[in-house]
């Protein structure tokens, strides 16, 4: 893996910080209490489930994942199910991360 250089860091940091600040501040000053357009509000609501699903899928799924046998690819999937259950039960990011790391470490040691 390549470590992130200061140049790469600065590009990512500045761009993300600017879009973030714009999203946080502009609606408050521009709308002055009026609602966002309904279509936009709907689209914004769909972004979190779509984005988090895409991130999870990117980490867990790969077309070549079963090439090395079933278990190396299935272990993270099983750990992911454990995390899902813990997350539903506790709604806690911290417990999910703890459960995920524990399950993943156990399953990959087997």
């Amino acid at each position: 893996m390549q470590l992130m250089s200061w140049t790469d860091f600065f590009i990512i940091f500045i761009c993300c910080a600017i879009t973030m600040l714009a999203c946080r501040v502009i609606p408050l000053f521009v709308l002055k209490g009026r609602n966002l357009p309904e279509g936009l509000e709907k689209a914004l609501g769909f972004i979190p489930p779509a984005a988090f699903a895409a991130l999870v899928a990117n980490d867990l799924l790969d077309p070549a994942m079963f090439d090395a046998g079933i278990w190396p690819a299935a272990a993270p999937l099983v750990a992911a199910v454990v995390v899902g259950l813990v997350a539903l039960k506790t709604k806690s990011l911290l417990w999910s991360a703890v459960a995920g790391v524990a399950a993943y470490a156990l399953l990959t040691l087997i």
Partner: protein
Amino acid sequence: MLGYVAIGIPCGILGDSIGLSALQAFLLSALFYSGAGQFMIPNMWLAGGPIASIIASVSLVNTRQMLYSAAFAPACRGVKKRLSFLFAATVTDESYGVNVQKFSEGEWSVDRATMVNLFSQSSWTISNVVGVLIGSAIGIPLAIAAFAMTSIFICLLVTQKWTPENALAALVAIVGVFVCKMLGWSGPAILIGAVLGVCAALAFSWAKGRG
């Protein structure tokens, strides 16, 4: 408040694993200040995503802040511009929840809400810096650290409101990521998958509205 510390320390450790220094973690936490975003940057970097795709995906996820910003506009009516700006610039998912509840109970003001925001931001920033220092001191295996990130995203995913539209958005996003990877577009897979998911859900809710 404890939540910020508990998640900020692992976030700093992950930042350290892709080579971020304590100063970089400080800048990100203090000025960008986004939990999901700060987990996404190392995650997508490890996945080998191009910089443009990382920026676009992180920004896309952060557009939800527009909803919060719009929601607080009535409370900021008649408040000094500088205070409104500081307040708006420091809203997050968690402090949004706290402040919305306080405002709805009444007897709550923008300057007190801003104090809540700044306190959250400070605990987040300090924990991230501490995390980087811990990470560089003990060296955690990358596979384990990466799965901690995956776990955080799983938690954020399953705690969404499960309406049919949201489920469709998630499903299409998953399929979209997989298809992109099959085509060899692993760099922008997350961005393309997420956008496809949002489009599918919009099309579905539009068709339902007409049906």
